């Protein structure tokens, strides 16, 4: 079974329990309760907490990402805070100087937000729509595969090898992205296929 009680939820529950019992025991009245009520809430209490993994090295420290909004509920959400996951057996809540600054990578000013194209000889990147970019890419692939796929070798053995287009895969995408990438790249016959492991 996967226990999925978030730390924030746990704090809320525990906090409510403590407050109810101790306030009652000490005989606090309505005035004190009213005072309690307007103390500003813990900032992270209004955020969504998500379990994630640091994107850098393969120690793979557990992290908690706090967002305004909840993507799982279909809402717009943006990251407001990232910290180490205290429940994680490897890092136990700690992070290194890179992990501790993760939020600024997610929100970096040089994040890409728009497909762009640099035309031959040009000194600028111009915006291009996804449709146009993808059409262009697919056309280039089809034309090159049609022209250069080696279907059989000199001995007449089917080799289905496409050497004139290459694909360099990532080092931080998920296994699931890797598998889909594998399917697409290999089904076309691409052999110039590598990832960062070689480097």
């Amino acid at each position, binding site marked *: 079974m*996967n*226990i999925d009680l978030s730390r924030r939820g746990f704090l809320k529950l525990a906090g409510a329990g403590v407050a109810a019992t101790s306030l009652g025991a000490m005989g606090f009245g309505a005035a004190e309760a009213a005072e309690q009520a307007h103390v500003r809430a813990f900032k992270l209490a209004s955020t969504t907490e*998500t*379990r994630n993994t640091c*994107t850098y090295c*393969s*120690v*793979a*420290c*557990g992290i908690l*990402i*706090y967002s305004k909004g909840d*993507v*799982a509920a279909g809402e717009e959400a943006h990251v407001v805070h990232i910290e180490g996951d205290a429940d994680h*057996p490897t*890092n136990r809540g700690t992070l290194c100087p*890179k*992990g501790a600054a993760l939020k*600024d*990578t997610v929100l*970096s000013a040089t*994040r*890409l937000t*728009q*497909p762009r194209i*640099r*035309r*031959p*000889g040009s*000194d600028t990147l111009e915006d291009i729509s*996804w449709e146009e970019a*993808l059409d262009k890419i697919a056309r*280039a*692939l*089809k034309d*090159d595969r*049609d022209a250069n796929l080696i279907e059989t070798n000199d001995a007449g053995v089917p*080799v*289905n*090898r496409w050497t*004139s287009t*290459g694909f360099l*895969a*990532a*080092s931080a*995408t*998920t*296994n*699931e*992205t*890797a598998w889909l*990438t594998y399917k697409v790249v*290999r*089904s076309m016959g691409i052999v*110039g*296929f590598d*990832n*960062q*492991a070689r*480097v």
Partner: protein
Amino acid sequence: MTNSWTDIKNTDLVVVMGGNAAEAHPCGFKWVTEAKAHRGAKLIVVDPRFTRTASVSDYYAPIRPGSDIAFLMGLINWMILNDKVQWEYVKNFTNAAFIVKDEFGWSDGLFSGYDPEKRDYDKSSWDYVIGEDGFAQIDMTLEHPRCVWNLLKEHVSRYTPELVEQVCGTPKDKFLKVAEMIGECSAVDKTMTSMYALGWTQHSKGAQNIRGMAMLQLVLGNIGVRGGGMNALRGHSNIQGLTDVGLMSNLLPGYMNIPTEKEKDWTTYMSSRSFKPLRPGQTSYWQNYPKFMVSFMKAMWGDAARADNDWAFHYLPKLDVPTYDILRMFDLMNEGKITNYFCQGFNPLLSFPNRGKVTSALSKLKLLVVMDPLETETAHFWENHGEYNDVDTASIQTEVIELPTTSFAEDDGSLVNSGRWMQWHWAAATPPGQAKRDTWIMSQIFLRMKKMYQDEGGPFPDPILNLTWNYKDENEPSAEELAKELNGRALADVFDLKDATKLLTAQGKQLLNFSQLRDDGSTMSACWIYSGSWNEEGNNMARRDNSDPDDTGAFLNWSFAWPLNRRILYNRASADMQGKAWDPSRKLIEWNGEKWAGYDVPDIAPTAKPDEVGPFIMNPEGSSRLFSRGMMRDGPFPTHMEPFESPLANVFNPEMRGNPVARVFAKDADQFATSDEFPFVATSYRLTEHFHYWTKHNRINAALQPEFFVEISEELAAEKGITKGGTVRVWSKRGSITAKALVSKRLRPLQCGDKLVHVIGIPLHWGFMGAARKGFGPNSLTPFVGDANVETPEFKAFLVNIEPATGEVVS
């Protein structure tokens, strides 16, 4: 890693050589600190530089970059001469007793069978003597002069402490101190762990560096035990996963191989993969290869992969060369032979050797597609940034399309850590602007291609038209759907192989694990080693029970570790021939008279008797290999080889340059330098405040380490008149860079025989994009040559020159 991060706390001795875990893997290194604080473990660091790992070590020994094999063979020699050998382990769990062919030999730094024309070995003599019974011959007394143990003894006898000092520049007393500390770990109740990273891989003989330590660990009996093992500290968050899933030129998922064109059909391909046991009764688990392979072909092509068409064998590309690795691809690109190239979250302009050649190669492409969350130098390779990217923009005709992708914070799925833990994570944010997931982008490209082949036709469209694509939303398959394919499911009812009436998994259900894979087309699984990660019990990668009974460090209910949730590979070797733990205080699994049980998933058939079946179940020998037969291109034992650019001639053969079988492209050989012109050894390294070329986009990290520098010794600074904080020019035969000079005591000249060797350290985090100041990386200088077995570039040892340059002095 054979073991896990959390297991490091169980060790008695940590050897960090070929890595710098305190800086590059800080939160994993905390388990070293834990072992030191609570177990009294010691830490040895062997490195050219007094790193931050060295600063918290119990003993530090310097070493010349690229001389690790001599050091490691020296250690094995010392262990043998001083009887620091775990004899029962060596006799029973390694191939020490196996008899080797008479024709095998070594002289002048080369093994038998060398052909200088082909730069390759005829490896036929590097093998066992096979008896009439079809099994390898052995001598358990280890007296036979041709048994592996005696050949190893002879091979390492050349690596005396004096030779180590001469080759490595490690003072003899320091080498001996390291040897004594390591020697203690041959006792059954002492163990040592090896933590290494790119300091060992980025050499023209990187794979042999690692073999050297693996052999030492076997001699000491430290593989398969808690606190032991060979622990590769992978550099990126999912580099392990991308390799597992086979995203390399010559791989299929799960460490199977793409066929070569010599394997003209399924039968031929399988004929060299029978994995017949080399000793009686051994497991030789790769005998199940056909089950893994058929299940993969079914995952790819479903009903189009059938027994009567060789499971669509010809849908797979066939290789005519060993690999179209990145070096070969960029060489072909530079020859104008590549039309289109994709970079998915990868920045080759700064990551690949000889940047001048990389720029030239990219300039010859017709189309470069970059998929990345950040603005990479590669996507901007055509943009002039003064001395930091001095290109003639107008003359570069490459079209570049830059596609914005999501980051980890906006994506669901699993990543594999160094210890093979597959950990699921969840999206926390909306992608910025128009950024899209890679799965959406790959689907769009594929669906467009498919449609064009349907509409226009074209050569051999079958593998594209028949690719399985049964997703709820064909435009963007979900992580869950893809993860379930990786695990595999039953395409027909799957029955017990020993009892045909016993239903194991019904048609359409997720398979329990890879023991249920079949070679008759009734199962599919994209990556057999991941089978078990998402079965009918649910997503095991998302498990978050962090309990750890008896504090062994196993955490069996946290995520899922491949294979089969096993946390320590070869764990059967933690027990003796009777199945009792070598060290009762470090029990892992034991034989209870009927089966194996304990703290980990046994790495052996649960009922395999301890005195009958060897622990190394993937090997046909049933044992591990001190002698690796013909499985590596550059020798069955590691032998000392100099880097391609070295200040010293090879002590065994002054004529031999670098690795004698490493692939060298003609034009690159012309760019190799000698020490007459380039007298200093350079090596690249990472800083703890930065991650490759990513964190320079991050204002905090950019502020922590704002400016590119090179590190030199006080002695070299004095010799060249370089001031602390001054500007220097460093150049090789391939390029030139300018940097601030960090003059430190962390680097000291090494006395190698009569030669004094200066080392220059070059960190690798700067470029011309992002928030940090512009700078260079080491790859402007590095040689375009790779490891003989896996083509990892030689970034860790090359030759440069240095001089003071004009520029602002900062301290």
